[in-house]
């Protein structure tokens, strides 16, 4: 691992100037390293942070990565990490023109890291330095505690997807300016309109009375509670309901675990903190993959095509660019999808299509001709890159126009019994279905929160809000054993599972032979029935109870 040569660094600095002119914003300092593919194999289990703490799972991954590389050698162009200064890794021996293209790609990544609001909590952390300090602490603890240190890492990592990323982000972004739900809000927004459904003139009268009271410094609510004696009680109930359930399982355990509170277990807290902070640091990256890659591909294309250094390498570029950003015939490529979606958004906004007038148009021809010549698309995509994550990006902008333009479809795969083949077919060309498929593939940890009313008598009670996807059953036992270890008592997990049907799919096909008779049986449409179950871990034994 070494820094790039002065010559290459010169190319990078030149790219920075042009990228800034195009509107990208990033810090002055960046670090570029040349690494070998073998280095990358060792870096990738450590999420590319060279100073991340040591852990045996990383070693296992390095060993299997080496085996994988032997079987399927790959040659990644670049990897950027969200540090300050931003560090990027390159493959050896790239020609200069290719470096120009790659640097534009990297600079757009850095721009994304440093401007997208989902990264806000990472902006003030020096992750490389922090990781080094953590690594030293963990090494020291390992020398004292032996393999128990690794168990604590394992158990903490077992729940590091259950952190309050959005809540923490919300806190930072609102900076305490968050509006607290108060009696006035409740009275005017809910109580009068929803609960009492008073006619409009009474509502307006109450508002003027409220203003009058504020002016005279009188208590507005004396009359309210006199008129509606149930008001205070209803307000109290509503307030309790509005309080969000605790979703940050890690933080809850750190704060309330009786086991961790013991003096001899204090050291575990620092380990869990390290794991939690590392997880939080990478949350925005997982949640903006499509956007981030799309943004970088969009800009390397836009900037490089206008750059004079492309001269003489147009065909080479076209070949490499196609291998990165072509839409596969069957399959998904987030680079390609994100890039095209950014282009699409810019054009739609240029024409003013994100407007009421356009949405209201039903005539296909008029829709196609629609152009308000707003030309605000460029500015608009910068707003999108600042404020959105993959979900809102795709959910908001992936429309039928986009699908039709790029001839996208959902590809299905089914078994043809006559020919004994897998058939790929066009399952749907509707934006709705395509969007649903993409959104289903996005990172989405299960919504598990602490049921505070049931967390008592030493029991930690976790409640999984069911979103039509069951939990991976095979992982439940070991994960709960880990959580129970750190909690120091029994852990209950409530979730939903399909009702056991006797041998689904096997029963009806047994009597005859589809390959002989040639047609396939009509699949029986059995709607899945879900039922709540409770998993209980006690003394490292798992029990399952149907509720």
């Amino acid at each position: 691992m070494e820094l790039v040569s002065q010559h290459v660094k010169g190319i990078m600095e030149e790219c920075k100037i042009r990228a800034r002119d195009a509107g990208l914003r990033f810090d002055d300092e960046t670090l570029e390293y040349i690494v070998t593919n073998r280095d990358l194999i060792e870096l990738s289990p450590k999420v590319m942070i060279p100073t991340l703490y040591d852990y045996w799972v990383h070693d296992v991954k390095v060993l299997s990565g080496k085996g994988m590389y032997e079987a399927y050698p790959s040659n990644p162009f670049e990897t950027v990490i969200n540090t300050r200064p931003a560090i990027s890794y390159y493959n050896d021996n790239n020609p200069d023109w290719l470096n120009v293209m790659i640097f534009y790609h990297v600079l757009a990544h850095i721009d994304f890291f440093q401007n997208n609001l989902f990264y806000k909590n990472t902006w003030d952390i020096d992750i490389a330095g922090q990781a080094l300090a953590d690594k030293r602490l963990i090494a020291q603890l390992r020398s004292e505690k032996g393999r128990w240190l690794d168990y604590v890492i394992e158990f903490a990592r077992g729940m590091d997807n259950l952190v309050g990323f959005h809540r923490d982000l919300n806190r930072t972004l609102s900076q305490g300016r968050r509006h607290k739900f108060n009696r006035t809000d409740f009275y005017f927004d809910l109580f009068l309109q929803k609960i009492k459904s008073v006619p409009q003139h009474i509502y307006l009268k109450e508002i003027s009375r409220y203003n009058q009271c504020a002016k005279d410094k009188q208590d507005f609510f004396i009359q309210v509670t006199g008129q509606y004696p149930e008001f205070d009680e209803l307000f109290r109930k509503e307030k309790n309901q509005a309080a969000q359930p605790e979703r940050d399982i890690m933080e809850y355990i750190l704060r309330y675990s009786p086991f961790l509170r013991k003096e001899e277990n204090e050291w575990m807290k620092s380990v869990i903190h390290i794991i939690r902070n590392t997880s939080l640091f990478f949350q925005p990256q997982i949640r903006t993959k499509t956007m981030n890659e799309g943004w970088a591909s969009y800009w390397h294309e836009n900037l490089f095509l206008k750059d004079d250094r492309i001269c003489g390498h147009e065909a080479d570029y076209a070949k490499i660019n196609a291998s990165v950003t072509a839409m596969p015939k069957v399959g998904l490529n987030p680079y390609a999808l994100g890039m095209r979606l950014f282009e699409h958004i810019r054009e739609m906004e240029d024409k003013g299509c994100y407007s009421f007038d356009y949405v209201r148009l039903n005539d296909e021809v008029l829709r196609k001709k629609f152009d308000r010549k707003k030309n605000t698309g460029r500015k608009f995509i910068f707003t999108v890159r600042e404020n959105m994550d993959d979900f809102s990006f795709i959910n908001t902008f992936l429309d039928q126009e986009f699908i039709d333009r790029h001839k996208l479809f959902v590809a299905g795969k089914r078994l043809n019994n006559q020919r004994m083949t897998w058939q790929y077919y066009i399952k749907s060309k509707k934006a709705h279905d395509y969007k649903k498929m993409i959104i289903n593939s996005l990172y989405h940890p299960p919504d598990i929160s602490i049921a505070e009313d049931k967390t008592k008598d030493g029991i930690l009670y976790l409640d999984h809000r069911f979103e039509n996807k069951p939990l991976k059953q095979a992982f439940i036992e070991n994960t709960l054993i880990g959580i129970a270890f750190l909690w120091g008592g029994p852990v209950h997990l409530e979730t939903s599972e399909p009702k056991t049907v006797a041998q689904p799919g096997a029963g009806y096909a047994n009597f005859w032979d589809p390959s002989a008779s040639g047609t396939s049986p009509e699949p029986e449409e059995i709607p899945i029935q879900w039922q709540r179950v409770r998993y209980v871990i006690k003394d490292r034994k798992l029990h399952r109870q149907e509720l």
Partner: protein
Amino acid sequence: MVTLDELLERDKKREQDGFKRKIRIGQIAKPGSGGREKIIVVPTTVEEKLVHDDISFRQQQEGEGDPTGGTGDGQEGDVIGEQPVRPEQGEGEGEGDGEGPGEGKGGEHEIEANAYELGKVLSQDFELPNLKDKGKKKALARYVYDLTDKNRGVGQILDKKATLKKIVETNMSLGNIPDVSTIDTTRFIVSPQDLIYRILSREKEYESQALVFFVRDYSGSMGGKVTQAVVSQHVMLYSWLVYQYEKQVETRFILHDTEAREVSDFQKYYSYKVAGGTKVYTAFKLVNEIVEKENLARDYNIYVFHGTDGDDWEKDGKQTLAEIEKMLTYVARIGITIVEHAYVGSKQTEVEKYINRSGILTKHSHLIKMDVMAENVDDSRIIQGIKNLIS
């Protein structure tokens, strides 16, 4: 860098602390030119968390794969491509010519070298049961290590008696012992060459030759973890045989869905997938036919290991049982592994039911064993399964 052995050693210690082991031995198939695949043995581990399950129940019922994205012309419902379900030998794997015997052998050698490593990792206390002396076509040698050989000068243990004899001998020829009735040992000259040591040496134990049939259900129902478990177990068995018997065991590979076929090597055996129904008897029948045609029973101890999810279209198993009965007349051991799908629950599969009902397990308890496990098994359970099958 941490080595595989160190990682496995550490993993073993987890059990002392009351936790399950986490490292599995995985395999990566490396595609080679001319269909020569190579298997690379790597450790794998899964970091378990509470996550959504990625299978969708509905699709599984319809016999449909997961949908993905696509680009191109066409209307909804148009078929855009096909892929054969059952890979045919010599096609579908991008291999055209070049499967000449010379090249094929090269590939085989590579997997065996790696399998040898895996076998070494596995414990050595397995042993093939019911080995009988049969013919002399090819001697199967087991190796044991013992301090039997003697060596002058260096070695592991000094053989005092032999050394003393040698010293006396040397000194006699030197004339240092003029009178044998009064020996003055202080005048002895001791040459380093007189020191006799015992050294660790490899002893061949000649035993009879063995032929192992690996039989695997590769039908549609075998998706996912079930196949993983069966293949894992057979990889281990195979690796152990390669290691323990120094590649002297002959192996044959049979795959079946509604019909059975023999494949030429372990890579194909382990990597092929299809989606079809299941007729277990076809596989046993094919084994019987091969044994009869090639007259193998005379010269070999025959072992048959069969892995399945227990699904069989032939519910009563009449034909399967008939084939098994036939097989029992010549085999040294049949080992049947049933890996149950999580949704089936225990004691539910056809194969398990009809085998239990037939009573052959008790009648021929030394010849046939069955092991039933769930699909979410870990490596230690799989190894335990091997022990059951060859006990």
